[in-house]
């Protein structure tokens, strides 16, 4: 197809109704109306696929985003710790020649910024000679004085650097911001690629899009190369501020992709001037910390003392040369708009060449002439704070009222050095898919650069972020913008390369799994418990709902009432259901609320949400498939209730599905996990909870005063998923002692309490603390006691009535078991999860 021809152009315009705005540079359509050459393969395909075809393909894309759980956290939004990642199907396409220009400019800029940091944390020639105003450094809270003179391995401060680029109406690329601290988004760029290349695989191959895996391999090689004391198998960790950080998803994703252990500050400790990872197996030395945490929060002893996020003693360990940090501590200093105003001079001075890509025009108001210029051109500039920590929102001069403008000028005159102005440019536009048509939107391209040998390597691609509308001037994921894959066209077909498939250096066979921090063990334990807890609630609820309208059948009604007692005891239903005629209606209301209303804290949906949250904290530990199941499940319970006559049958359906999904989840998690400590803690949680729930089921389902109602026993067997076993043994006769034996004492029944206790005993035998035969830990003794207790129990004794006609032997045993199980849980927490021990600050005058 000849796209330069008028026919194709009109065909494309007609099919996609794309109208670029002549006021801006458009990436797709040139000023003469033609499609730019680098877009031809994509546009050809879009013509073939058509809007409906893209809509179908994009459903798949959205499903991938949802199922891979690609999320982004929005600060200050209690509703969502995770919001689906907004991705647009149409990539940004950049031609090979243009990319070479960008690449060279980015290499130069990273080299320059690295050299500036080396000077500022060393001899400070740039300040002494007045090439960079000292105030910009000395007043900056990111100038970390304890890090001055720290030796950085191989002279690299910036191991990864990112720049935000924009294109002005004349087609020129500009740098609009530098990211030197711990640039985010490279992982999202990779995820965008995975999704977009699956939605448009045919085009992707035809267009010779360059791959990104080489870039990450280079990053890994660079990091491997700065490990201080050369070791065969260095331990590298990725330090995250935690799950509430806006890009936590990316931290977990990158840790997995790069093969590093994801840790929080509390997982690390400094002993004898070395950094260790606290794991269940003991302290393991850490050689390199890849940080996604801001540097000033990395050590509460020497850096910011008001935060406990970091690792006390870290700076001293770095100083001693026992551990390396990437990016180096202190690099946040250059993440501000003001230094850019001085880069042209600094570049000539330090590298002896001109800056290859200009920074958007920047004026630091701390100098009189720039200040006067800015004050008289407020309409054309964006005002930003010079130093971090104040109001960080940019102010668009043109949008100020007369009064606001006067107030701003007054503030600026009072402390001019606090303000930086940048020229307000009209960003270029790119097509965004919007409900069947393409619309132009502004965008900013974030490009990533990693240290490679003596120079830097640029990721062929990047993170393209688009504005919410053509009027919007701010590109921010925090404020609801979208993102795109970025295609850099190669000169020819690109060889396939994936980090996961082909490591550059063949790795030795290893049986070691990821080191397990005790915080993670804690989460796994509770994930196991919570999944089991929900399963019991779902099973009991299903047993009740299926017996809801059975007033006429006494056996059925007895089974239902047993279920209601259990649910009430577990806290899901209110305990004061009236015995009167409106009982069924009340019960139905409460049950439906529990099933459909996920806003109620006792609802299944809300409990499920908690499980999903726990699983989400374990993103780097749980298989993608298991995560997908859970996501799907969470969504089932978020749907609104069906209309009235279908509510009960809909609920039954939902509960049936829920049981299948839960089994699939536990199955997958268990099956895909290596049999290490992580798996053990998950299973301990699960077994402990199942034993506990069984004790509660029997206590409240059977009751203290026995009745011969077979309906009650049947319901109990159904809830405990042991009905078939019972039938196959005893045919139809329902006897309390036989049911008790099967549910409580029979070690062959995988649902019985005895079975769980036997597994617990085994697990605890294998735990690190139990290895000493001299001093057995409390959890070991409790596990042995619990198992012995059920093994020694006689079912005839348990089923015997006391003189008052009550099952007091049984009740005593159940109470003892419940108490011991609680103590067992506490003992495990004390032995293994005590990482939560608080650090505190000491100060003395």
């Amino acid at each position, binding site marked *: 197809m000849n796209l330069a021809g008028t026919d194709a152009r009109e065909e494309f315009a007609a099919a996609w109704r794309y109208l670029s705005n002549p006021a801006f540079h458009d990436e797709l359509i040139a000023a003469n109306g033609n499609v730019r050459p680098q877009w031809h393969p994509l546009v050809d395909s879009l013509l073939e696929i058509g809007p409906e075809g893209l809509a179908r393909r994009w459903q798949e894309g959205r499903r991938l985003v949802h199922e891979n759980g690609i999320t982004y956290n929005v600060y200050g939004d209690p509703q969502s710790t995770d919001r689906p990642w907004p991705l647009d199907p149409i990539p940004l396409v950049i031609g090979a020649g243009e990319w070479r220009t960008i690449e060279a400019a980015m290499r130069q800029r990273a080299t320059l910024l690295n050299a500036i940091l080396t000077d500022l944390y060393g001899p400070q020639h740039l*300040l*002494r000679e*007045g090439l960079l105003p*000292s*105030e910009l450094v*000395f*007043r900056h*809270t990111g100038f970390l*004085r*304890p890090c*001055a003179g720290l030796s950085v391995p191989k002279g690299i401060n910036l191991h990864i650097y990112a720049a935000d680029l924009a294109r002005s109406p004349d087609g020129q690329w500009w740098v609009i911001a530098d990211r030197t601290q711990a640039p985010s988004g490279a992982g999202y760029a990779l995820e965008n690629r995975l999704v977009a290349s699956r939605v448009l695989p045919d085009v992707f191959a035809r267009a010779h899009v360059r791959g990104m895996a080489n870039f990450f391999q280079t990053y890994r090689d660079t990091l491997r190369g700065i490990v201080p004391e050369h070791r065969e198998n260095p331990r590298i960790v990725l330090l995250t501020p935690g799950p509430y950080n806006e890009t936590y998803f990316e931290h977990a994703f990158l840790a997995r992709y790069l093969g590093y252990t994801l840790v929080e500050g509390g997982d690390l*400790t*400094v*002993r*004898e*001037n070395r950094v260790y990872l606290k794991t269940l197996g003991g302290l393991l030395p850490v050689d390199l910390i890849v940080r996604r945490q801001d540097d000033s929060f990395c050590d*509460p*002893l*020497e850096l910011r*003392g008001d935060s406990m996020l970091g690792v*006390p*003693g870290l700076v*001293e360990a770095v*100083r*001693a040369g026992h551990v390396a940090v990437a990016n180096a501590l202190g690099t946040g200093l250059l993440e501000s708009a003001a230094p850019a105003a001085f880069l042209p001079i600094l570049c000539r001075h330090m590298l002896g060449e001109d800056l290859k890509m200009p920074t958007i025009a920047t004026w630091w108001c701390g100098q009189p002439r720039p200040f006067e210029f800015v004050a008289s051109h407020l309409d054309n500039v964006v005002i930003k704070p010079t130093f971090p920590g104040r109001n960080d929102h940019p102010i668009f001069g043109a949008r100020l009222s007369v009064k606001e403008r006067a107030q701003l000028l007054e503030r600026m005159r*009072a402390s001019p050095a606090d303000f930086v102005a940048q020229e307000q440019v009209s960003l270029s536009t790119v097509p965004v898919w919007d409900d069947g048509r393409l619309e132009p939107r502004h965008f900013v391209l974030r490009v990533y650069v990693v240290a490679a040998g003596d120079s830097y390597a640029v990721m062929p691609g990047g993170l393209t972020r688009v504005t919410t509308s053509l009027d919007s001037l701010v590109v921010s994921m925090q404020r609801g913008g979208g993102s795109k894959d970025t295609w850099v066209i190669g000169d020819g077909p690109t060889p396939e390369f994936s980090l996961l498939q082909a490591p550059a250096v063949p790795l030795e066979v290893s049986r070691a799994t990821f080191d397990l921090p005790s915080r993670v063990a804690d989460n796994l334990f509770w994930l196991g418990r919570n999944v089991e807890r929900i399963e019991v609630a779902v099973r009991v609820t299903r047993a009740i709902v299926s017996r809801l309208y059975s007033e006429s059948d006494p056996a059925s009604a007895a089974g239902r009432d047993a279920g209601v007692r259990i649910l009430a005891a577990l806290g899901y239903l209110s305990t004061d259901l009236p015995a009167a005629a409106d009982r069924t209606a009340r019960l139905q209301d409460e049950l439906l609320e529990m099933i459909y209303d996920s806003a109620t804290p006792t609802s299944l949906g809300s409990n499920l949400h908690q499980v999903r949250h726990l699983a989400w904290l374990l993103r780097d530990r749980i298989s993608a498939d298991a995560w997908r199941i859970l996501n799907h499940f969470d969504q089932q319970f978020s749907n609104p209730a069906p209309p009235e006559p279908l509510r009960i049958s809909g609920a039954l359906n939902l509960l049936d599905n829920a049981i299948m999904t839960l089994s699939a989840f536990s199955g997958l998690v268990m099956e895909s996990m290596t049999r290490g400590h992580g798996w053990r803690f998950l299973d301990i949680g699960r077994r402990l909870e199942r034993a506990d729930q069984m004790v509660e089921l029997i206590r409240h389902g059977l009751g203290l005063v026995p009745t011969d109602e077979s309906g009650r026993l049947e319901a109990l067997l159904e809830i405990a998923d042991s009905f078939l076993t019972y039938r196959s043994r005893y045919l139809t006769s329902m006897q309390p002692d036989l049911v008790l034996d099967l549910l409580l004492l029979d070690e062959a029944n995988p649902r019985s309490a005895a079975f769980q206790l036997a597994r617990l005993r085994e697990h605890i035998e294998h735990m690190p603390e139990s290895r000493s035969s001299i001093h057995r830990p409390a959890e070991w003794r409790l596990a042995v006691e619990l198992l012995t207790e059920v093994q020694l129990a006689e079912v005839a004794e348990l089923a015997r009535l006391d003189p008052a006609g009550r099952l007091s032997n049984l009740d005593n045993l159940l109470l003892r078991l419940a108490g011991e199980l609680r103590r067992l849980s506490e003992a495990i927490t004390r032995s293994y999860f005590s990482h939560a*021990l*608080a*650090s*505190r*600050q*000491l*100060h*003395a*005058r």
Partner: protein
Amino acid sequence: MALCVNHTTTYTYSEPVSICHTEVRLKPRTSAAQTLLEHELVIVPAPEVLIARQDYFGNTATYFSSQEPHLKLTITAHSVVEVHASDPLQPRLTPKWEQVSEEVRRYDRAETFDALQFVFESPRVRTASEFADYARPSFPAGRPLLEGALDLCGRIYKEFKYDQRATTVSTPVDEVLRIRHGVCQDFAHLMIACLRSIGLPARYVSGYLRSGRNSVGSEASHAWVSVFCAGFGWLDLDPTNNLMPAANHVTAAWGRDYSDVSPVKGVALGGGEQAITVGVDVAPVPIRY
């Protein structure tokens, strides 16, 4: 004359501390005004790691960590310092305060470049118009710098009340200006804020004061102010006692404010409830025959 300084800091905990990381700045500096003759740092329980280094401002910072579980940590610094008496300055001979401010803003000499970093706000000292307003009456146009600084020092001494209960170690300097009560740390921060707010470089000095009937602040570590005066170097002023330190003050460390030079700071894991006691004793070294 030589002064002997004994400074003991004791932390006691209700529950064992399993590991602590501590950084202290307890070793007196050697400068034109004093010479360090003896120094010994004793820590109980004995730390596994103890490393001394020069910090960004040239102070000795000593890092140590103890990982033996303990209910009590005692840090004792013993120092003997020879204090040199210098000829008193004639305040009226010092340069005009505006001239010093301009020279520092130009920072074309090593001396002024070094002073420049002390003119900006720092973690514990804001610069703001309310501090400039307070300083203004002491600094009419053309007044020699030291005359102005002494006047400001005297006003703070008279208008603020020494009161150990009014503030804590973390009281912001704005509040000190408002409540007009505080201790040496607060007065030093306030005076620094005033000087910087009119463009004069000022630093925070942490140290000791010889006990005597008329001096305030000798029972714990002391703090005062140093102001930069081009051609004369750094001049010390003690707003808590309204004087220029001479033979009775021992300088331990200086920095932009307290956060740069706190004598003892640390992070401990565990510990429950904690109590701190600090004891300082400064006395002339007995003459031996």
